[in-house]
């Protein structure tokens, strides 16, 4: 779907992150957690591609989408300049999104802005009555975005900061291990985003702790709808001579079982 959306709010969350709230009823109605949109919010022709952003929160009743983003380069800088009332162009909702279990507990492991898609997943899990255990890390505490929102839907939010202030900067996978072993919480599904290291760490834990882990991948995207074949990742496939196939993150993803991804 290619539509316009109206910015209804736009605020700084911390020095690095901003939250933009866009009114777009159709997408808000159709979108599922784990999906993303392609956004264009500029006229300048030197930026030729729209940019992919995860849905941080999906609010069908209000007809609103929330995007949590980090200013990285020219496109995110342009987005940061847009004011409430202005329009943006959106392609979406895109990608497959996640499938949640009927019952049980899920864990969310997010590094930095990788927290963005996890919020929508956590919120959906919460309203389904699942237990949501959230683990977030960043360089320092005030760079962990969305803390308030996660605290609302999570059973427990565990943090770790590289400066060592919180949890001695330990890797989130170890903190998850603590939760399972020390606190005896059974986790059925894990979602992670924002760090290759976390995803790899989860892969080696799956067997031992009997959960399935999914990673939300990022690749540079041109179309977001499967046309350009640009956003591929390597996925294991024993049926091919090479032992892998390329899958499009925008179409077959962005959610992949960590056990299938070749890094």
């Amino acid at each position: 779907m290619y539509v316009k959306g109206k910015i209804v709010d736009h605020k700084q969350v911390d020095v690095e992150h901003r939250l933009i709230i866009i009114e777009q009823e159709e997408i808000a109605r159709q979108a599922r957690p784990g999906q993303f949109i392609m956004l264009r919010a500029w006229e300048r022709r030197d930026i030729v591609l729209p940019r992919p952003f995860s849905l941080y929160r999906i609010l069908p009743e209000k007809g609103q989408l929330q995007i949590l983003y980090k200013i990285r380069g020219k496109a995110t800088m342009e987005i940061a300049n847009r004011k409430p009332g202005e329009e943006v162009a959106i392609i979406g909702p895109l990608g497959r999104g996640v499938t949640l279990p009927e019952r049980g507990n899920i864990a969310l492991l997010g590094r930095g802005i990788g927290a963005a898609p996890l919020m929508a997943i956590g919120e959906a899990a919460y309203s389904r009555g699942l237990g949501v255990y959230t683990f977030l890390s960043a360089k320092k505490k005030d760079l962990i975005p969305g803390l308030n929102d996660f605290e609302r839907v999570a059973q427990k939010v565990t943090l770790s900061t590289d400066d060592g202030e919180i949890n001695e900067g330990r890797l989130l996978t170890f903190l998850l291990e603590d939760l399972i072993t020390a606190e005896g919480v059974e986790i059925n599904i894990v979602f992670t985003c924002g760090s290759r290291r976390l995803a790899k760490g989860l892969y080696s834990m799956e067997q031992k702790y009997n959960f399935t882990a999914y990673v939300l991948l990022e690749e540079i995207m041109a179309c977001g709808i499967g046309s350009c074949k640009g956003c591929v990742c390597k996925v294991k496939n024993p049926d091919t001579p090479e032992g892998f196939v390329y899958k499009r993150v925008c179409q077959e993803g962005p959610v992949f079982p960590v056990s299938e991804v070749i890094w």
Partner: protein
Amino acid sequence: MKKPELSGELVPGLILKNPVMPASGTYDYGEGANAFDPSLLGAIVTKSVAASPRAGNAPPRLYETPCGLLNAVGIPSEGVDAFKRHTLPGLKKYDTALIVSVAGETPADFIKVIGSLEEEEGIAAYELNFSCPNLGDGMPYGTDPELLALALKKIRKVAARPLIVKLSPNVADIRLMARRAREAGADILTVANTLTGMAIDIRKRKPVLGNIFGGLSGPAIKPIALRMVWEVAGAVDIPVIGVGGITNAADALEFIMAGARAVQVGTANFANPMVMLEIIEGIADYLQENGFAKVEDIVGLARK
């Protein structure tokens, strides 16, 4: 005033509803993501089909440059057999000309694909992609006029349908390529493909693309593609389809006034999936406002 006529016959048997079509590899049909009905297009052009399945290049495959896009997708293809089984039936249902783009590294590859497609109905023409810069270091069919002519003569023998030859811009004199292609049997020329480029990540200190080199497309290359359309339209008497950096109706009109009978739109589809319809409308408006009855009336107008 009467509505201007947008349709035209490029060559006998190939009638376009209007002069705007997607550039191969930049637009998909049927996966449900269409922003509009593809039947509204002047033609449908498929992603290039190869003889056998191909995985394509290792990622990263894309990189944005100022006003441009580098892609090193590398022509991944399901192969012609799967194309016939899975993809072609879906494409046939649209009510507009279907152009199948064919890629290969050798004449035999092209012959295999076309030989296999000739038995199918509902295909209007083939577009031959000799110019992919992402296919490693094979023979330069796309940049050597004699090799191109040789390949084309062989392919011509198996193809009853019109052959559109898509020329590479990575040459010193595209008029030579155009003349030899025409002599060797091309019915139509598409001018041009991407220009080979690259980018380096100075933080990682290595090329950005998995394939090192990629093809540059988008507004950055428009002046170069337009010049080549101008040159080719002056060098041969067969129809030219212009492509390279077209982002709006004004861009398309430049190509048509340079001598193109139709245009293709690639990179611009990504940022604005409705752009091809907007261009069709923009061309119609221009004709009407300036008192032209049909597209044909402005083809090559800037040359006169």
